[in-house]
């Protein structure tokens, strides 16, 4: 079954997003930073969509995406950034790294659920 990986150093956000997606019938895994997110993606081939924060300790979200596309040579997993960052420069960096979309926090699940389903499908 296709799975969504939620990567955020805040357990409040992880619980909120993961809880919402699970409640809506989606299979979810979580990671606390980019490093763990990368490790989970390496070992779980069911992950089709990653929803990730940008600012995280150990490895930030954009570095994680760059490594997914570079080191892991994974060009297929979709990545959505869920972050407080909203500057055009930051979005451009995300776009160049291979990010599919950008959400400025706070998370409003109902507004994005159908798109998440499609991207995870």
């Amino acid at each position, binding site marked *: 079954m296709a799975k969504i990986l939620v990567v955020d150093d*805040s*357990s*409040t*956000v*992880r*619980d*909120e*997003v*993961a*809880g*919402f997606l*699970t*409640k809506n019938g989606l299979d979810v895994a979580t990671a606390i930073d980019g490093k763990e997110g990368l490790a989970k993606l390496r070992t779980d081939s069911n992950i089709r969509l990653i929803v990730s924060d940008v*600012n995280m300790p150990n490895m930030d979200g954009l570095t994680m995406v760059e490594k997914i596309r570079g080191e892991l040579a994974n060009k297929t997993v979709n990545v*959505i950034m869920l*972050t*407080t*960052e*909203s*500057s*055009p*420069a930051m*979005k451009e960096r*995300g*776009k160049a790294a291979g*990010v*599919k*979309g*950008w*959400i*400025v*926090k*706070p*998370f*409003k*699940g*109902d*507004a*994005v659920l159908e*798109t998440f389903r499609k991207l995870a499908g």
Partner: protein
Amino acid sequence: MNLSKPVSKVLVLDDSPAHAEALKLFFDEHNLIALKVRDSRRLSAVLSTSIDLGGVLLADDYGGSLDEAAAAAARINTLRPELPVILRLSGNTPPEQLPHALKNAACASFDAANMSALCAAVDQYIFSLDFPNALVRGIAEITEARLATLFDGVTVRRDAPSVVRDRIIFGEVFSLIPLEGTWCRGYMLMQAQEDPLLAMIERDRAARRSGANGASGTSGVSGPGAAEAGFRDLNNLLGELTNLIWGAFKDRFLGPQSAREASQVQVPLLVNHKHRYISFGSDNPQLRFQYLLHDETSGQSVAIDQRFVFNLSWSPEDFSENTLDVDDLVESGELDLF
């Protein structure tokens, strides 16, 4: 009062009725709020419970004598040395003959017949940083919007922003995040009392579990396995709230220029747990906001204390605001697909 500018609360230790009206007028014209202590025996209690003072106005005849006034000055100097003390000279004693404690405590003095000296002292020692109106207004807007997303059925109220010189910690939990820009460098401090906030988290969880408030996933406190809230839940909530406000502040006021370009001078922060005291290594006044989250159903309220401390760099002449608010371009929570 000029409501577009921050106010400041000043402890008034002056029991002379002859000057009360003039001082009241002066306070109104200069955005000062008087906190009067008519009984000098209550001074220690007031000093130990007030957390939002901008300074002290002390008359040299407070309490009826020079000795009483000197004792009050000594108490202030012991309990709250960070507060600027402005001395009103009664004219009964030549300034050079004032007790050492009075002379030592005062940063400035004035004669009630010449309020321009008081005006200069207030500008120099209380409103020594000129916070741009757009910054003050913007901080309040950003924070109120983020607070409103925390809980269902809660309204957000706000006191007038104020300039404070005290360094007393409010509540039991606080978060601290650096603000690094080209025109300012410092910190944002968010403080709260633990028990009322925990209770609000639990009420919110209970309401969500029972389905009373729907399940839209818009709050920061719902989640799988929600149960009785512990201090870690509170830490996470305050941390995420801080993160949300910081992100919006950065976008609106700090611009795209990298903070790395700014000078990386740092100073140690000092926290004294016993005295509930935090120092940022600077005498600069702090910009304070207090928000009240009110739960309409239970009638309970939670106070959130927010402070901005620009201790490392402050150049308001270079202040700029991103008027193209990102919230106007892509509403928060909506997906911007590339």
